[in-house]
């Protein structure tokens, strides 16, 4: 009862609880929060001491790989699902409160959380519980590709196939949607994290040098590409030389990074090809005519649309603001439910 009253003073929130970033879209306000899904936990005095949250989000991300013994910067989500339940709950609690700043009452919003379509029942349950534990009045779940398609502005309600490829931090979801429902969906556990990992491995193999995750991410953002382009970019990075044991600086170019990313990119391409194979022919024809839409943070990888276009032969479009597509789509789904009674939610 009291939650309901508090709910009158709370906005509906749509949360894209991603492996890399958590985005919150508040109804009527737009994206109100975009922070890395990282939590830094401080262990107080000795191994048996109490644990408390040192930082969440950006502050915690800057600590990744740079923490002393008593602080642990962790990413509570792995491959799009919860790996550490309590920490995820704390993080969500923090984010919901932050998104609802300067309120007298403790917020108790209706919350829509996006889940990977390949997630198991247990994983969905964990996400639901953790959102409820973070103070949500009601929790809805929506499958990520559905939210991504809505957020990208695709005509999901029409009787025609729309193909969406959402490349997130932990997972890549490919789905064909028609009439507010998912006709085919596939989730592969390849995403931005795997790109970083591939870059780290490549540099260790070829340069005998160890770099951290943050550096790998920076390399990916600056010179990473998915298809050979006309210009070659270079970047100077520093890492610990394994043979000498001291930090060394060296220069990388975009072709090397392209080479290093081949394996994860091949995984994504094969997932898309499988999806096209499995799609019913009518919907496949629609997709071939209009093309597929790319969303998710990794859609910002240079020329990834080009790669997919070459590989599949169908038009590929990068959605506008691909990073926030899922969160925005979730917000629109919530509105739709209230306005038109459309049910696009995932069952548990």
């Amino acid at each position, binding site marked *: 009862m009291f939650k309901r009253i508090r709910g009158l003073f709370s906005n509906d929130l749509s949360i894209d609880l991603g492996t890399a970033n958590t985005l919150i879209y508040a109804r009527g306000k737009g994206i109100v929060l975009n922070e890395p899904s990282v939590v830094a936990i401080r262990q107080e005095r000795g191994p048996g001491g109490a644990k408390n949250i040192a930082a969440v989000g950006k502050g915690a991300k800057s600590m990744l790989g740079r923490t002393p013994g008593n602080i642990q910067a962790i990413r509570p989500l792995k491959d799009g699902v919860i790996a550490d339940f309590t920490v995820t709950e704390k993080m969500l609690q923090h984010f919901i409160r932050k998104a609802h700043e300067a309120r007298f009452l403790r917020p108790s919003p209706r919350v829509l959380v996006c889940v990977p379509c390949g997630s198991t029942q247990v994983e969905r349950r964990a996400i639901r519980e953790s959102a409820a534990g973070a103070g949500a009045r009601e929790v809805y779940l929506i499958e990520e590709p559905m939210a991504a398609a809505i957020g990208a*502005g695709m005509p*999901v309600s029409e009787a025609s196939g729309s193909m969406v490829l959402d490349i997130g931090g932990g997972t890549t979801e490919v789905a064909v949607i028609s009439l507010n429902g998912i006709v085919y969906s596939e989730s592969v556990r390849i995403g931005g994290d795997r790109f970083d990992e591939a870059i780290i491995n490549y540099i260790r193999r070829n340069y005998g040098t160890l770099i951290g995750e943050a550096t790998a991410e920076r390399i990916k953002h600056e010179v990473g590409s998915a298809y050979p382009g006309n210009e070659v970019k270079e970047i100077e990075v520093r890492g610990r030389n394994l043979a000498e044991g001291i930090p060394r600086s060296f220069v990388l170019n975009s072709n090397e990074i392209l080479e290093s990313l081949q394996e994860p990119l091949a995984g994504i391409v094969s997932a898309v090809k499988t999806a096209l194979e499995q799609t019913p022919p009518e919907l496949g024809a629609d997709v071939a005519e209009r*093309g597929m839409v790319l969303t998710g943070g990794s859609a910002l990888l240079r020329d990834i*649309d080009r790669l997919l276009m070459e590989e599949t032969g169908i038009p590929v479009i990068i959605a506008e603001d691909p990073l926030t597509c899922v969160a925005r789509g979730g917000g629109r789904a919530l509105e739709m439910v209230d306005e*038109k009674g459309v049910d696009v939610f995932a069952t548990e």
Partner: protein
Amino acid sequence: MSTTPRDGGPVIDPEDPTGPGAQLREARHRANLSIEEVATQLRLDRRTVRALEENEFQYLPAPTFIRGYIRSYARLLGLPPGPILEAYDYQGFTPPAIMADITQRPQARFSDFPVLLATYVVAAGLVAMVVMWWHSRESVPEAPAEVELVADLPQEAAATPPGATSESASLDEQQPPEPAPPAEELVAVEVGDAQSETGIALGAPMVNAAPESLVRQLQTPSESASSDSGSAVAPAREPAADAPANAATNRTVTVREALITAMETPPPPPGRLVIRFSDESWVEVFDADGIRREFRLATPGSRTSVSGTPPFNVLLGFAEGALVTFDGRDYDITRFIRGDTARFLIGPDGLAKARPPKPPPEPDQSSAIAGSEPSPLPPEAAAAQPSASTNTPASN
């Protein structure tokens, strides 16, 4: 040709009459590309490319796709996509509405405003009804109950006095044996309750002499029974034989009559102390004159009633197990409890703290053995005590 505004096309930006299509077409010409080449590069239909260049967006899919095509096209031609997209946006296309399927009709949900409102109205109505019912229940009962009782009284009261006197008297005489205590107790309780509830309402007109005497009768046997039980037991044994049958048949009648009698009864004479025991205890009661009125062991379920000049100085051996009633009113004595015992003064003014009575109590007349009393004599006179104690029984 490309710069002339087109007829039949959608509304074209008045500031930029060429629209996004013309810009693309110009750039394509500059790059020396044919529509076919562009279509192959972008994996699009030639039709789609041509529609883009001619601003015929109504033949193209949703704006999301169009924006995507424009962006890809612009990138292919080495143009910044921003201005072309702006030109496209200027035409005011909105993203597709998301519609429910035909089969899906909006289902009433709890969060819908009318449903929510109706729920709260119903809930508020229920609460209001409960409150009203509660309120009426609190204010009404006294009046109807009185009326009922008063209405009952005349015919019952007219019939009762002779019969009731004999019956309840016989019932009271059975007090030492089994069946009597409940009935007797009931009368005592009812006297207390009825007095508080109906005493004022019934008032003087309803009271007549007969019930008063009846109450006296009710009270006196019990007193005599409790105070000098030795003498009371003998006469009580005789009616005890036929009492159970009598009591069983007349139980309801007797209880009812006792109730009526109790209601007609005026407040009991002042200075009547009743102590009921639910546990084993002992009790000592002095009245205001310093006379010991009661001093005995009490068994669970028994009761002691003391008359005399109030206030009474009471000492209870196990105060937890005793319920003290004075003039029909119950008193809470918990604040006087020290350990197990409690000593207090009780009178018409209520409870008060008490000290052990100052004047050493005189040997009680009712007590059989005077020798057990503490001697008031000085130690040197103790030798003379035996002769004194032998004298007392003799005089008794």
